[in-house]
């Protein structure tokens, strides 16, 4: 069965950090169209601090995710801190006692994470938020596992669904957050949170696929 070791998983989080850092300006730019243009700044701040903290640390995947979640809760206010903070904390908790990460462990991780974010943020599909990425991505992963496809295939399905989910926000009218002020005028551009969420999901999938190949 496909799997990798929890203790080898720090790289997954380091890649998340790199992804956000590389897309900082792009995220702010997207947020600037119908939000206040700070999404890249907010995300970069927390992820960079996490990167610093992990750099020389001896941490497994669970500890690395926990560090990320904690930093986000400590360093980013607004909604992003608690939402992404909860996302990564829940992921960390779901694999804490697992020496190996396989497709069932990750299923628990992503579903627990989605549940935490959903409970906290209360946003629905179609509200034009990161939930429009997170929900379909998780569903696609679950469906692939149900169909007994491989871990890698399930991750690829999750990644593809995230991308589609992000694209789907373009046609939505925001019902939550700052952009909801614009009503119809919020249609036609991507939601910033769904862009960052898609990047994070894609990075998670790519990193894990690379670890599986080792």
């Amino acid at each position: 069965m496909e799997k990798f070791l929890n203790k080898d998983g720090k790289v997954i989080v380091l890649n998340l950090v790199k992804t956000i850092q590389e897309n900082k300006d792009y995220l702010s730019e997207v947020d600037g169209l119908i939000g206040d243009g700070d999404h890249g700044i907010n995300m970069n701040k927390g992820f960079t601090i996490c990167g610093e903290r992990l750099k020389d640390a001896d941490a497994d995947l669970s500890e690395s995710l926990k560090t990320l979640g904690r930093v986000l809760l400590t360093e980013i206010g607004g909604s992003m801190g608690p939402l992404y903070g909860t996302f990564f904390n829940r992921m960390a908790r779901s694999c804490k006692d697992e020496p190996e990460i396989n497709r069932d462990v990750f299923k628990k991780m992503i579903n627990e994470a989605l549940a935490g974010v959903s409970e906290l943020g209360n946003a629905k599909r179609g509200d034009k938020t990161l939930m429009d990425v997170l929900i379909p991505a998780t569903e696609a992963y679950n469906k692939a596992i149900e169909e007994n496809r491989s871990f890698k295939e399930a991750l690829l399905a999750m990644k593809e669904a995230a991308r589609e989910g992000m694209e789907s926000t373009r046609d939505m009218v925001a019902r939550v957050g700052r952009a909801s002020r614009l009503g119809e005028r919020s249609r036609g551009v991507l939601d910033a949170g769904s862009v960052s969420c898609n990047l994070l999901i894609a990075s998670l999938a790519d990193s894990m696929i690379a670890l599986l190949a080792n």
Partner: protein
Amino acid sequence: MQRIINKPDMVVEDMLKGFVKAHDDIVMPTSNPRVLKYKDAPVKGKVGVVTGGGSGHKPAFIGYIGKNLCDAVAVGEIFSSPTAQAFYDAFREADSGKGVACLYGNYAGDNMNVKMAIELAADDGIEVKTVVANDDVASAPKEERHKRRGVAGEVFMWKIGGAKAALGGSLDEVIAAAQKAIDNTRSVGIGLTPCTIPAVGHPNFEIKPGTMEVGIGHHGEPGVEVCEIKTADEMAKMMVDIVVPDLPFVEGDEVAVIVSGLGATPVMELYILYNKIEELLAEKGIKVYKSFVGNYFTSLEMMGATFTAMKLDDELKELLDLECNSMGLKVFGK
């Protein structure tokens, strides 16, 4: 941007440094740079009173730290909720063992961060109870009051909660008093110009010259109506007509009133507005027991004003009249 700032990302840090220097007779920094506390906090034997919110609303929130008011405040970025950590640290700074009343405004970010902070505090054995201000009538219909935002009425919530705590109230009593304050409080705002977050560099939303937005929120959240700009007297009437029927305030009521500027409106104009508001209330048989006219809850350099009324009973009057001393609110005892 015609503004007095250094690095746009650092306005909150720079402001906090200046604030602590200017008010070292009232406030103290803490180990969390995003938490300020009353210099005597935690006050022995007293329930701790905590609030927090995004920056850019001065005097809110740190301007209400002080004697018989708030004990600790969590400070967010401009227009953005403080972190869960900051709320949690504020709880710890305020708690003397009697528990903490966290009196804050109904915003998605604040709700989430307070919720997570309460979980953290529970692990430490700190009991935290909350009152969530939702005085902004225009932000949701009456049936969905729980969705309404908190605006300038929060000042009354802090004043009443702070006074109850100062008089030795238990955590439940402080929460009950603050909840009663906000349940009896209604507000509405009118926006005349937008504002610019320094790190963003351009206005966050638009109000066309010659128009005004009735019911606008403190961060430019959409109101109930955009219309041609009216006279001060007509603005007063629109505001009174939104606020009074909602509670409702009725003949014979005594109220406390806040007319707050949003930041850049000359204070002169707030008195022009108050003049008519008082007259309209008097016509309805509603008596103003105490009024606060000035900049009590602002939005950077937005122009416009908010009108807040709180219906009083004997308990609320006594708590309102108690001496308090903070940067934003100073009341001399009777």
